[in-house]
C-alpha cells in the first residue's frame, strides 16, 4: 500500500518537507500505523504528536481510522487562523 503524507504549518519546517510517500507491506493499515512510520522517519515530530490531528482527504480522522491504498493523510499542527 502506498500512502501520501502531507505536512501542514510548522510541521513542514520540522520535517523539512511538504510531503512524503510511504510504502507499506501490510494488508490493513490505520492512521496510527502511518503516524508511527512518519515519526520513525522524522523524529523531530515525536514531541509534537500530542497536538497533531490527522485527516484523510477532507475528513478529520481518529488514529483508529483505516487507511486505504492511495489515501492522502494530512498531519495538522495546532491551528492559528483568524
Amino acid at each position, binding site marked *: 500500500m502506498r500512502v501520501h503524507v502531507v505536512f*501542514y504549518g*510548522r510541521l513542514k519546517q520540522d520535517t523539512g518537507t511538504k510531503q512524503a510517500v510511504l510504502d507499506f507491506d501490510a494488508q490493513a493499515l490505520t492512521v496510527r500505523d502511518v503516524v508511527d512510520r512518519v515519526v520513525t522517519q522524522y523524529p523531530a515530530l515525536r514531541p509534537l504528536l500530542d497536538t497533531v*490531528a490527522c485527516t484523510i482527504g*477532507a*475528513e478529520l480522522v481518529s488514529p483508529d481510522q483505516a487507511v486505504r491504498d492511495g489515501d492522502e493523510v*494530512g498531519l495538522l*499542527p495546532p*491551528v492559528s487562523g483568524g
Partner: protein
Amino acid sequence: MSKWITEAPLDLNALLQETEDPASGALVIFTGTVRNENDGRPVQGMTYEAHTALAEKVLRQIEAEVLERFPVRRCRIQHRIGALQLGEPSVYVVVRAGHRAEAFQAARYGIDEVKKRAPIWKEEHYITGDSRYLDGTPLQPPQKEEYPE
C-alpha cells in the same frame, strides 16, 4: 475564488450583497487584519496556509451552527490564504439579524470557532527577515462514536 477559502483579496462589499436581507435590522462584521507587531516584534507580513478542503467544510459548518444556535438570519465566513501585507483583512465574519444583541453574540461565536477549529496556520514574517509559525489550538480528532464500525 471559493466562497469560504480564497487566495484573492477579500471583498466585503460582495459579502454584504450576498447576505442582503430586508428582514434584518442589525449587521455585525468582524474582520481580522494583519498587525504590524506581535509580542513586541515588528512584523512585515503574514502568510496564511490552509488545509483547504477541510477548512471549507469547517467554515460551512460554523456558518450553519451560527444560524442554528442564534436567532440570526444570515451568516457568511470567508478566510483568505497566501501572503498578506500589513493591514490586509485575513477573515470576515458577517452576521445579519433582526436585532443587535444576537448579531453581536453570533459574530463573536463565529470568529471564536474559526480560530479554534479551522485548519489554517499563520506564519509571521518579521522585519528582521526571519519568520515563525504562530502557536495555536490543537484540533480535536473526531469522537469514536462518529465512526461506528
